[in-house]
């Protein structure tokens, strides 16, 4: 049993480190609508986009993965959110090099930057926050990371790049995510295949449950589920998150520039 486990871990980790990107192309744009659902009464909160584009430096071409969230105008006077998460990754393997997070949530502002150094397995982080009196303060750190640690945005895209068609129902895999300068383990479980209706048509989907280890945010009892289309693009079309009263939902509105 132990031998089986070790070999499984080894197999998975080898998959992780040499996984080729066959799913994500530059110029892809996915738009979602985030809403709050209370016993069937859906209130739309914000628009979420996931975009990719090619970025050229003098030495190489990188893929820029960008996620933004912006509240709808009716919410702006109550609680305005303008979030930006982006990651610059290798187009071949989706390995992150630079990660930026710039959030503005109801006046709370924070900026985070991670620079990945894969040779020394460290991340140089920079945190910039606004003090109450309006001045900035910075916090620089160097964090030791695991070989397979990624940032949040890259992890999202990496999940899309997994060979889910090779997995069988009930399989699970762990990912290490660097968030708020801490390594967090996210667990993904393949629940089933399901056909659901979406704004981009009827889609056969992989139903995956997400949970965060040792956290109250996303608990591990299959309450937080994400549906990825069961084709080569593996677009996230629907996600559902359980919260104290009611649930949060993320529904796709449009998808453009897909690879397959």
């Amino acid at each position, binding site marked *: 049993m132990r031998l089986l486990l070790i070999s499984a871990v080894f197999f998975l980790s080898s998959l992780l480190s040499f996984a080729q990107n066959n799913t994500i192309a530059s110029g892809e744009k996915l738009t979602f*609508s985030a809403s709050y659902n209370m016993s069937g009464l859906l*209130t739309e909160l914000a628009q979420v986009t996931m975009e990719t584009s090619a970025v050229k430096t003098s030495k190489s071409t990188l893929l820029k993965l960008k996620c933004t969230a912006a509240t709808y105008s009716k919410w702006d006077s109550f609680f305005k959110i303008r979030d930006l998460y982006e990651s*610059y990754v*290798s187009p071949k393997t989706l390995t992150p090099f*630079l990660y*930026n997070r710039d959030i503005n949530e109801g006046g709370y502002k924070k900026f985070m930057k991670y620079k990945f150094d894969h040779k020394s397995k460290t991340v140089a982080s920079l945190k910039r926050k606004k003090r109450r009196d309006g001045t900035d303060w910075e916090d620089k750190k160097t964090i030791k990371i695991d070989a397979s640690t990624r940032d949040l945005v890259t992890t999202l895209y990496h999940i899309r790049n997994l060979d889910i068609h090779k997995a069988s129902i009930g399989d699970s895999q762990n990912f290490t995510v660097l968030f708020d300068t801490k390594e967090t383990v996210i667990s993904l479980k393949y629940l089933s295949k399901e056909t659901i209706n979406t704004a981009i048509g009827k889609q056969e989907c992989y139903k995956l449950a997400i949970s965060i280890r040792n956290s109250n945010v996303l608990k591990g009892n299959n309450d937080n589920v994400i549906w990825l289309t069961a084709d080569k693009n593996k677009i996230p079309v629907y996600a559902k998150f359980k919260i104290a009263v009611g649930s949060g939902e993320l529904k796709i509105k449009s998808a453009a520039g897909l690879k397959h």
Partner: protein
Amino acid sequence: MKKLFIILGFVAAIIALILAVTPLSKIAYIPSIAALIFGVLVLYTAKNKGESKKSVQLIFLMTIIALALTTYKALFNTAEVGDTEQLEQKEEQLEEESLEELENLDIDEDL
């Protein structure tokens, strides 16, 4: 009994009105329905006594206003993103900054 229903009816109607004004207006349907039920219950319990029905009328009035507002909002307000100019500016600025950083980084694409 009647008093209890009047109080509950008022509370529900006021919650419905407050919710109807906020962007969370769709949820106002829940207290609206509760207020209507309590209103009917008040009428029912006070049927034969010939008492004043002013409070019940007020409950119904508030609930109808809340329902009208909520329905109007649900039908005519579409969800649109407000101004994202700041966000776009920030994106551009960040991309410039990041490009500079990336130039200085030692990048191995096959990693």
